[in-house]
């Protein structure tokens, strides 16, 4: 009797988590035009998706944006984390706290302030403004993951490397980077996903010259749910699963 309660509970939780996703994937293969009835198996919505030029374009835009935003924020974030970890300087606590403020502040506030800033400096809204905005909100996540990794880092390792004849540069390449690699990967992946599905900030800072996927979907959904969106969702799901598996595989390999 007592054993059933936790099991039922756990089953419910997982159902809650996965049923919507399952519905989405299943209905992406639905022949029927409406989302309510099953009309047999079909790939027509995938076909429709790939024939939708604007959609494909938005997808590539989104991927490119996520890629560049994640990479740039990983670079800046890793260096920031290293500086915060290694050096003591005035205002370190303030800097550290400010990162949290960016992370905790409501997205809408960030969006409005970024828009105001871009307008103030007279920037064209498009790829560059999106990139700047995305790097901004990805950065704290990277800094925090790398900082967490560094907090368990043996301070003597760089010294040991120096002692064994490595220059600072060689030490960084051969000792420091391999140790924080998992955090760099995790931070990058986090940034990539955050950027890929961001709607709020992007709504404010994107322009007509650079349409991205979440906004495109959002505008499509407003006029009624098209099954094409299900197909797209299923594809994105597969894509993120592949990314996740890939990163785990790299981590496992680097540990060996």
């Amino acid at each position, binding site marked *: 009797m007592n054993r059933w309660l936790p099991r039922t509970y756990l089953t419910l939780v997982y159902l809650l988590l996965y049923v919507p996703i399952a519905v989405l994937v299943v209905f992406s293969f639905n022949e029927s035009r409406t989302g309510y009835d099953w009309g047999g198996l079909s790939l027509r919505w995938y076909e429709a998706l790939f024939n939708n030029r604007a959609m494909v374009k938005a997808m590539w835009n989104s991927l490119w944006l996520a890629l560049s935003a994640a990479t740039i924020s990983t670079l800046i974030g890793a260096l920031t984390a290293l500086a915060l970890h290694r050096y003591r300087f005035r205002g370190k606590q303030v800097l550290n706290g400010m990162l949290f403020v960016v992370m905790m502040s409501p997205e809408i506030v960030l969006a409005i302030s970024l828009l105001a800033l871009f307008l103030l400096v007279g920037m064209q809204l498009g790829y560059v403004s999106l990139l700047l905005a995305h790097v901004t909100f990805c950065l704290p996540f990277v800094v925090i993951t790398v900082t967490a990794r560094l907090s368990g880092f*043996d301070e*003597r*390792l760089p*010294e*040991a*490397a*120096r*002692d*064994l*004849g*490595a*220059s600072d540069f*060689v030490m960084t390449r*051969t*000792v420091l980077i*391999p*140790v924080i*690699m998992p955090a760099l990967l995790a931070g990058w992946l986090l940034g990539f996903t955050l950027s890929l599905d961001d709607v709020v900030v992007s709504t404010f800072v994107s322009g007509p010259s650079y349409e991205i996927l979440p906004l495109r979907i959002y505008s499509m959904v407003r006029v009624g749910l098209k099954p094409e969106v299900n197909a797209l969702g299923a594809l994105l799901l597969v894509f993120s699963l592949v990314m996740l598996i890939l990163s785990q595989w790299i981590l496992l390999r*680097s*540990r*060996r």
Partner: protein
Amino acid sequence: MTSHSDLSCTGLVRRFSGHTAVDHVSLDVPAGTFFSILGPSGCGKTTLLRLLAGFDKPDEGDIHIRGQRMNDVPPNHRPVNMVFQHLALFPTMSVGENIGYGLKRQKVPAAERQKRIVQVLEQVGLPDLAGRNPQQLSGGQRQRVALARCLVLKPTLLLLDEPLGALDLKLREQMKVELKHLQKAFGTTFVYITHDQSEAMVMSDQVAVMRNGRFDQVAPPEVLYRQPETPFVAGFVGDNNRLRGDLVSVEGELADIRLDDGSRVRGRIACEGLEPGSRVDLFVRPESLVLAGEAINPGYTGMDARIRTTLFDGANSRVEAEAAGQTVYARLPQDGSAPRLGENAAVRLAWDPILARVFEAAT
């Protein structure tokens, strides 16, 4: 700089805001010897070692290694390697890669590198472990890998920063002996820092006892043990009993002392400038104390004591006794020569005054 000394320091000073961690330390380590720096935590020994390794720079003084001035040489260009306290093995590399790390930096070709890795692993008694991860090794094995990583580079000087601290007692005893053998086998000059006097005593040719940034005494272990020059060394190196009293008179090298309960004992004077009436500390080792039932050597001095308890520990068995209001330990021989003592038994503790050392009392 004499050519036969591998390391020679003169007047080293390192100040941090507020205190002087290393205070005019000079030392000279002959080639191929095992030199230990022994001191309580916070005495400045780690700072001194970091100066030698090049991670820190002295404010004053010079460091010479084989006659070469090292003050401005960065750590990666010094002929010195260090075994760190927590070993600092690179977690992302295999044992072989760890050991080959320094060789690779010296641009030793891969084939030669491989040969030397295999060779050094054999020398430290870990053949066939090159492919393992450091995390998969036991504490003692990791220890040897850390040593091999340094020794493979054939450094002039090997610095060791309490590397045995993380091991359990039994393994530590083993590694002590092994380290000494390895040092002899490789012929490398070792500079070893530790707060554990037994490590220093067992392994070293010379021991420097450090306190508050200075060396109290530099001597071979046996001299340190038998003829401590300061009360700190007397109390820090080996077990010792300290009895406080007033100096009554001096006859030759022996002092006559009145302990606080009025009893009179004698000991050998170990410092200068003692006048009758000065407060003094008499140090006498537990093994010098004889539990005298009746027969006392006429030259001996002694005092009455009351047994508190017996601490049985095989060959290290001792009795804890109270004498002149102070706690005293005496060795309890396990060869059947000592009487069986009950609690509160009254005994007389006697010793040869030559074996006790008298210093001016530290305030």
